[in-house]
Structures are given as C-alpha cells and as structure tokens.
C-alpha cells in the first residue's frame, strides 16, 4: 500500500460521493430522506398490526423497523456497489495499470458512509422517542456491521469479476435482494410468518444479523454472539480467499469489457 494508493482511494470515494448528489437541490440530504420516508410509509401502514403481532409497543416497532431497514440497506448497497465496482470503472481499467482492488474498496466505503449516516437516524429517533441504548449494545451493533462489511468485501472480490463476464448478474442480484428484503423480516415480526416457512428467516444470515441488532437496541440484550463471531471468522477467511481469486482473475479482465 503506497501513499498514492491511499490518495487514489480517497479521491475515488470523494468522486463517487460528489457525483451521487451533484446537481440535486437537497443534495446530500437524500441519504437521510430516502430511508426516512420508506420508514414513515411502512410505519404508518404496519405499526398497528405488525407491532401487535410481535408484542411490540409502537415506540419499539419504530426502532424495530428502522434497524431492519438500515441494516438491509447497508447490505443492499454494499453488495450491489461492490459487484458493479469493476464494471463501473472499466474506463480506467483499460487505460491505466493501478491497483484494481482500490476500486472495490472505495465502492464499499461508500456504502459504509451511507450506513453511518443512517445509523445516526437511529440515534436521533432514539432520542426523540426517549429510548435508551446501552453502550455495550451499541458496540455490539457496530461489531455486527463490521462483520457485514468484511463479508461484503470478501463477496465483492468474486462478484465484481463475475459481473464482467455475466451481464445478467445485475438483474439476478436485484431479484435476489428483493426476495431477501422479505426473507429478512425487515418490516414485519417473525411471528407473522407461517410456522412452516420460518426456517427461511432463521437460516438467513442477514435476518439473524438484523434480529441481533434489534435485540440489542430494543431489549438491550446481546444475542447470537456465537453466530456473529463465527461469521467474523468466516468473513476474514472469505476476504483472503476472495483477494487471491480476484488477483488471479483481474489480470485478464481488461480484455472482457
């Protein structure tokens, strides 16, 4: 890692960030507004029924819904942007020989920045509704997000390469992410899902992460610790395997755009 690599990484993140909101009047506020309105709509429609089915007060349901939305959005953006990162910078890759993995990490950093901003909404809502989060629970939530970040980084090493060869991947991932939205119990309590289908949620890592975040924020309980630690180990391994896969296959990528 040279100084130029670091500077290039910062420049790419800055550029993506500026480009995303350049020219729009509300600009950067859109990062906050989009999930907030999504939250508002779902909250108005579902707070009575969904909250009651899960035995949640409407305050608790607000945190329940918000944490689900924000964790899901983090995964959605990280996965999608990581996958598209190489393809999106084809213009550079065919002209200059720089460290290609910088493109991947800068795309993921963008998702992380959005997540951190969104996470502040959780804090804001908490203050507004007078909900107290325990510090160790907040730390646990950040650990979970770190694990997710590593996991998505590892996955992106594969998907960013596959994306160049299989153009369908964009559509496939859109579909899968859409299904995942429902399979992760983002806005409804698990109790609303018929018994025989609940295994989908209990075997879905994203749903488990969301559940753990909720337990930490709503009840102040640290749950699924073993799963989170196992995922951490798995993600670290995934990053290493992914990196070597990436390094091997990136060499030929410039010919396939």
């Amino acid at each position: 890692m040279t100084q130029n690599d670091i500077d290039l990484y910062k420049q790419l993140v800055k550029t993506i960030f500026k480009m995303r909101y350049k020219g729009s009047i509300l600009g950067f506020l859109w990062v906050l507004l989009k999930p907030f309105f999504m939250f508002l709509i779902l909250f108005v429609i579902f707070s009575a029924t969904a909250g009651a089915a899960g035995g949640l007060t409407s305050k608790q349901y607000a945190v329940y819904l918000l944490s689900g939305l924000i964790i899901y959005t983090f995964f959605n953006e990280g996965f999608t942007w990581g996958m598209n990162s190489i393809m999106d910078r084809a213009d550079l890759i065919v002209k200059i020989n720089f460290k290609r993995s910088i493109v991947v990490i800068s795309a993921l950093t963008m998702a992380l920045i959005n997540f951190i901003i969104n996470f502040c909404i959780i804090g804001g809502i908490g203050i507004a509704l007078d909900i107290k989060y325990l510090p160790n629970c907040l730390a646990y939530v950040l650990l979970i997000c770190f694990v997710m970040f590593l996991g998505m980084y590892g996955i992106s090493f594969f998907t960013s390469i596959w994306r160049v060869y299989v153009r369908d991947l964009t559509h496939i991932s859109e579909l899968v992410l859409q299904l995942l939205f429902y399979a992760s119990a983002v806005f409804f309590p698990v109790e609303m899902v018929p018994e025989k289908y609940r295994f989908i949620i209990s075997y879905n890592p994203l749903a488990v992460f969301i559940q753990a975040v909720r337990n930490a924020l709503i009840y102040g309980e640290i749950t699924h610790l073993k799963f989170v630690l196992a995922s951490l180990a798995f993600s670290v391994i995934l990053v290493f395997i992914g990196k070597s896969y990436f390094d091997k296959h990136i060499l030929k990528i410039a010919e396939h755009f």
Partner: protein
Amino acid sequence: MEDNIAVSLKNINKKFVIPVNGKKDTLQERFVNPFHRTKYIEFQALKDLSFDVKKNEFFSVIGPNGAGKSTLLKIVSGIYIPDSGQVVVNGKLVPFLELGVGFNPELTAKENVYLNGTILGLTKKEIDEYIDEIFEFAELKEFANLSVKNFSSGMAVRLAFSIAIKVKSDILVLDEVLAVGDGEFQKKCFNYFDSIVGRKTILFVSHGLEAVKKYSDRVLWLKEDKTYEIGDPVEMVDKYSKTF
C-alpha cells in the same frame, strides 16, 4: 537483464477470442439454446514479438490498423497479459494511452486535476505542490473552479496534458498524444518533448510519420501478416510508406 535496457519483450504472443455475433454474455442464450455453442473467432494480435528498448531511447512503433500497435502498448503497460512470452520493465512506467483518463465532466477542473493526477500515480501532496504550475502551463488559471463539461475539448485536453507531464516516470508510453490544443499550445508541447527526448525512455505509437522520423532513435514496423522489422527511422518509414 542488462542495466541499459528499459523495456524488454521476449517471444510475446497475444490472441483475442471474439464471439462471432457480438457479445454472448447473457444467460438467456444458454437457456434458450443450451446445446448451442457460441462460435468464436481467434484473432492473433501479436505473434512471437521480441525487442529491447534501451534506456533513454525514443522507440517508435508504426504499422497499419490491426497490426497490434495498441495491444503492444497495453501489454507493455501491464493492462493486458500476454498469452506467452516475457515482459520486463526496468523503471517506473506511465502509460498515456489517452489523455485525461477518469476525467469527470461534472467535476471542476481543480477536482479533476486531483482525480486524474492520483490515477496517474501522483500523491495528493505532490499535486498540492504542482497545481499552480499545472494551471499555468494549461493557461486555464481563471477556469480552475469551472466544471470540465463547460470546457471546449481543446481546453480539457490541455489540462490533461499539463497534468500528465507532471507525473514522474522513467518510461513514457505514448499513444498518439504528442501535441494537443491550438498552434500556440502545440509549440509548448513540442518544447516539452524536446526537453525530455534523450532523458527519458519513450515508447511511441503514431500514424504521424514525420514526428516518428524526427524524434525516433529506432522504429518497430508491425505488419499485417504479423511479421515485423526493427531499424533506422528513415528507412523504416520509407519502406512502410511504400506499402500504401
């Protein structure tokens, strides 16, 4: 490798595999017709090519379209990997296959200097140091905070050129970018080239045969049938000119 060699290529082969009816990347093709194999044609871009470029030599590559000139530059630059053969580069190589790589029209000129500069290998600190000189050379000082989309193509390329010459390198790979902009700016470009000829290794691809004759120490002529000749610039250019 000898000390006075900057770039060395040995027995380079490069083949491209191209689907006959355009891209066949979608799964639909495979669903609709799982047993249909896409037909590919092979295109041999470079065949058994070997040459050395000496340190501080001006080495030009000429030849018709499709002879493999651009492929060669991309292989030397590390963008393509040869199928077989060996590439050794001795020193810091910067490819200028295009000026203004990564330029973003929405960003201001200044922002683009930082973006393009880091892509070319400069650090932020170095750019901080050079930024005034860059705008000075490009004669665009008063436009530093303007979006590049409002620039004429000449202005954009002037800016790009001014960044490019600030990049520290031992070996320059140039694809047809010798001089850009209007007459006056072109003069500045040529002055710059005069100042580096003999002090840096330059690998140059061009259809501008006059420039090739004027600057080159040696010329590589790539032919359509994948044979090649290396020799004296005047002789090579004359021979090549007789083929059309």
